[in-house]
């Protein structure tokens, strides 16, 4: 009798975690963070717009992925991911899309206004997210003295006077994006099938393209706190370049 009880318990335990129909259509997106076409490494020389730079901190939020399937849209309004160039695994486990053909993907680059500041409709204090959650204040991506998230930290050094030394005064750059008005979606057409099995798709990012046509020497620092800030438009320029940063999706 005891043996049957144990087997029953084991069966309940094993099968209780399966999706309702027993099929798993979980989609993950792997972000390959590159400088050009090579994996971005910190404290390594890269040439961007003729300027030699080194990255020291590259982190960014992806939020609210949306998928189109013909006339239908599948939204994940509570899904957030914090990408980090220092991490070897930048895979965003989005959720179950169900068995269907997907023909388009869009996602927010940053934290959407519903959760970005405490004025958002779904806002909760950053300290109340679990430590492992992308939005936890422990990730040090939250401005507590100007409540709101830093959507992207793009920090490093530049060899402004081309002397092969990055420690001269004024050779640090630091771009922090944020501010609700600058929230942007990146969208791509990409057809793939979810066919009752988990799937991971990939997208390459070229971080250098944030500086496309941007005068890094002239404006190496942009941490705007609102739309009135003098450095808001510089930040917006970088944020708008997010559309150039992402390549096409592939499996």
């Amino acid at each position: 009798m005891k043996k049957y009880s144990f087997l029953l318990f084991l069966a309940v335990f094993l099968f209780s975690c399966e999706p309702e129909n027993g099929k798993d259509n979980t989609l993950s997106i792997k972000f390959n963070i590159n400088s050009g076409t090579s994996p971005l490494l910190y404290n390594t020389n890269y040439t961007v717009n003729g300027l030699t730079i080194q990255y020291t901190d590259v982190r960014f939020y992806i939020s609210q992925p949306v998928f189109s399937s013909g006339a239908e849209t599948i939204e994940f309004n509570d899904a957030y991911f914090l990408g980090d160039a220092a991490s070897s695994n930048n895979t965003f486990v989005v959720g179950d899309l169900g068995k269907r053909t997907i023909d388009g993907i869009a996602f927010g680059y940053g934290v959407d206004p519903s959760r970005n500041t405490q004025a958002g409709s779904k806002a909760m204090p950053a300290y109340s997210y679990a430590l492992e959650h992308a939005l936890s204040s422990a990730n040090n991506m939250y401005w507590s003295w100007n409540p709101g998230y830093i959507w992207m930290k793009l920090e490093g050094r530049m060899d402004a006077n081309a002397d092969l030394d990055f420690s001269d005064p004024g050779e640090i750059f630091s771009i922090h994006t944020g501010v609700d008005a600058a929230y942007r979606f990146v969208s791509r057409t990409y057809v793939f099938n979810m066919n009752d099995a988990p799937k991971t798709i990939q997208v390459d990012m070229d971080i250098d393209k944030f500086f496309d046509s941007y005068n890094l020497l002239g404006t190496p620092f942009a941490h705007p706190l609102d739309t009135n800030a003098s450095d808001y438009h510089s930040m917006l320029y970088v944020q708008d370049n997010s559309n150039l940063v992402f390549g096409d999706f592939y499996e």
Partner: protein
Amino acid sequence: MNRKERIVFLSIISILLFSCGNKINPDKPYKFDLPKGFKYPKIPNENSITVKKVELGKLLFYDPILSDDSTISCSSCHVPELAFTDGKKLPIGIKGNIGNRNSPSLINVAYYPYFFAEGKVMDLETQAQAPGLHAEEMGSEMKKMIYRLRNNKFYRKKFREIYNEEIDVKHFVYVLASYERTLIAGKSKYDRNDFNTDEQKGKDLFFSTRTNCSKCHNGNLFTDFSFQNIGLYEVYEDPGLARVNSSATDSGKFKTPSLRNVEYTAPYMHDGSIVALENVVEFYNSGGEKHKNKSEFIKPLSLSKEEKRCLVLFLKSLTDDDLKNKKGVFKSPNLIYQ
């Protein structure tokens, strides 16, 4: 109930009662010992104040485990015997990093409507995490700090007594904020209306339209929490409130600080640039530097030497009796961490 049942019932009750004999109920509310004239502070619904939370918050406040290299604690910059300031021009964080603002007092923060010199942090819980996230203060690795607490047998047990779940950021800020809310003090000569002749003269000057001190330093905490440019500089290195709202008209404006215990909170101003209380009075007497945002209340006062002396004496009458005697909240505790 027969005799046998009664014995069993009483035995169970006895076991239940005595097994908890030396333990504090984790939900036992903290009872404030409020000075006369002090209202019961606002406590957020999600962080009810309990004895256990206050005790644990106190332990953490004095424990260097919170800093990245375990060299400094909250109390390194907020020393009880200095009214929870540090006596330094600017605070010194880990690895000798120097902060950019003079350490503010924590006394009576339970009544503050907002925090930091720009006043953009609206609750003590959010404030409590900030020093741990600043590289120049305690480091910038909150995640590592929480893991350090999770891996510490003593704290794991302490937090579990309250929350019965894995330590997280919210638990940490809840207990720290709970302790900070208990730092209430208001027993001074001023509170007893016990002034000698010179102090009374200083008081009359302080509350007069001649000096305008009380235009901003008023109420029970001697601050209206307004943001003022007092003309400390013609050109401010630190933009103050403009740092967060980018407004040129707010450049050089900082939150008005409480003057309670001001005798012990030297050096003064947002950057600790004025060494002594006498110099502060001298600064206000001069009318400050020219600045387009300077408060209309700051103007040359033409105070006599005697008047300045009396004003200083009045300010010293705001010192808490316990602070003078290094008692109560103003005494560094001897805590046992094991």
